[in-house]
């Protein structure tokens, strides 16, 4: 019987029989923890394995991104607990100056096509963008993965999605992503892997692939996997310096639990209204609602291409009076490129406040939260009540965020 993409990756990392529903032991290429939960991982490790070593320090990493640099003493303490443990164990720390851990893992070539990666980030399945299996887990799981280099995992069934047609700008990969989240709903792919195919998917650049894979969690999915694309190979070769990866692809006779087909030829810019990510509407339905704060960044839309697009839209203009535009590039590398190409200057001139690379507004970390009644438009991935503060949060594309920042109200980028 043929295998799906996730089954291919698992079979290459397990001696157990790989079939949906089976619990297997999975070898892990990367075991990581963030500053969120990292200290608890260390505490668990020290309690369960006193005096012992991690299985392989070369495959074990800390990535600090939630509260970077720390703005509470509690976070600073927890980061320091991780650093001390890392020194003892010879583990590399991507410290508070690095950016979003999942993106750093891709940029550094640690997550590569076919790799298996775990960490304490529920959006780590974003690594599907490079054809890797990524999974967010809790403290016990990660402490165990640090110690033994493997984890238990139930092989999921896979849903196959085919996207027909092409869309045109100002419709963007985020709109495609929100469209699928809306169609599937928060549990449409619960506990399953999804594979997403189609001409439009194959045309995505790396930033678009990241955006699409970043919201698999909001569909309840274990992860989303895509066919390879040109943008992918350029990225992977730069990140790893290698040209010899074989991308995991599904066999023609792979078995799927469900097959879905959607057409995106008529797709319009989309927006998620409170209180949850599957509450998807066309931007035009909500146009005119007041906006106080606009946040551009997060693992979903914090790439160079995302932020440059916002800068291009805002070039020579100013955000509306009273609107705060917050920008957080995903990583130090993205930040540096935007700086050197002077896009940060464009954003500054337009009135934006720019912060260091991190999860920023998405993780109750940096660049501020919202107060009651403060309406936020975010390019992030979740808008559960309380996640980003007391105010209501809408989710949209960088283009919609920029257009709305200009007018101080929800505005479709079609109007630009």
């Amino acid at each position, binding site marked *: 019987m043929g295998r799906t993409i996730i089954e291919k990756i698992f079979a290459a990392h397990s001696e157990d029989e790989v079939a949906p529903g089976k619990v297997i032991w999975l070898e892990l290429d990367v075991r990581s923890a963030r500053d969120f939960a990292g200290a608890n991982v260390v505490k668990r490790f020290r309690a369960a394995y006193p005096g012992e070593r991690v299985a392989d320090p070369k495959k074990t990493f800390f990535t600090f991104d939630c509260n970077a640099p720390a703005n509470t003493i509690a976070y600073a303490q927890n980061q320091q607990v991780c650093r001390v443990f890392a020194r003892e164990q010879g583990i590399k720390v991507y410290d508070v100056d690095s950016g979003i851990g999942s993106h750093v893992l891709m940029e550094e070539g640690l997550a590569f096509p076919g790799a298996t990666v775990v960490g304490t980030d529920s959006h780590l399945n974003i690594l599907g963008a490079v054809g890797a299996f990524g999974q967010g887990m*809790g403290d016990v799981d990660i402490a165990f993965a640090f110690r033994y280099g493997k984890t238990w995992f139930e092989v999921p069934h896979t849903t196959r999605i085919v996207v027909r047609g092409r869309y045109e700008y100002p419709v963007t990969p985020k709109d495609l992503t929100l469209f699928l989240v809306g169609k599937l709903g928060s549990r449409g792919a619960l506990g399953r892997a999804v594979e997403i195919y189609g001409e439009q998917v194959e045309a995505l650049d790396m930033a678009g692939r990241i955006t699409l894979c970043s919201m698999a969690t909001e569909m309840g999915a274990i992860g989303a996997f895509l066919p390879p694309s040109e943008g992918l190979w350029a990225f992977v070769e730069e990140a790893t310096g290698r040209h010899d990866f074989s991308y995991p692809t599904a066999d023609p006779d792979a078995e799927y639990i469900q097959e879905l087909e959607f057409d995106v030829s008529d797709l319009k810019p989309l927006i998620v209204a409170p209180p949850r990510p599957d509450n998807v509407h066309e931007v035009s339905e909500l146009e005119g609602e007041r906006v106080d704060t606009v946040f551009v960044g997060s693992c979903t839309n914090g790439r160079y291409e995302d932020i440059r697009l916002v800068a291009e839209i805002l070039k020579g203009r100013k955000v509306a009076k009273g609107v705060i535009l917050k920008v957080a590039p995903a990583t130090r590398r993205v930040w540096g490129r935007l700086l050197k190409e002077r896009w940060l200057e464009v954003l500054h001139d337009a009135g934006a406040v720019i912060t260091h690379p991190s999860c920023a507004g998405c993780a109750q970390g940096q660049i501020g939260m919202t107060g009651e009644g403060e309406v936020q438009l975010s390019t992030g991935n979740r808008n559960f009540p309380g996640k980003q503060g007391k105010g209501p949060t809408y989710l949209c594309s960088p283009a919609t965020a920029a257009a709305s920042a200009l007018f101080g109200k929800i505005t479709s980028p079609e109007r630009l």
Partner: protein
Amino acid sequence: MIKGRVWKYGDDVNTDVIFPGRYTYARMEPEEMAKHALEDLDPNFAKEVKPGDVIVAGKNFGCGSSREQAATCLVAAGVGAVIAKSFARIFFRNAINNGLLALEIPEAVDAIQPGDEVELDPEAGILRHKGKEYRFPPLPEAVLEILRDGGLIPHLKKKLAKEG
């Protein structure tokens, strides 16, 4: 065997309401965590929950972040099991790894009301409620083994000692 009183909730109970993000570093001891379990969903829960009580919920219980506190705060509060129509997968494994029984018995959820008594035999795959028996497929043996040993770390310790 688990016997307890039911706390009933709806669909999509997310980790932000099971254990608020603002406490993830501020409240790290089990007794402290127990005091805030489900605080933003049901303020009475932490005050009134008794050891062995069972949470019964709808679809996608535990969706949202990977924070393990969402499972450990329920363990700390003495919850005997969570029964749901379905679980978000990260929550499911956090529960199992911490020795918290998490069972998908969709056909029983609608019949069970808040405050009812239920009895669970996870090994046999039986749920008893008001004289009615619901059969459910027992969890995979590998998962039951982890639960019997009280979680992933004690389970592997025991296993390695045996192989040792």
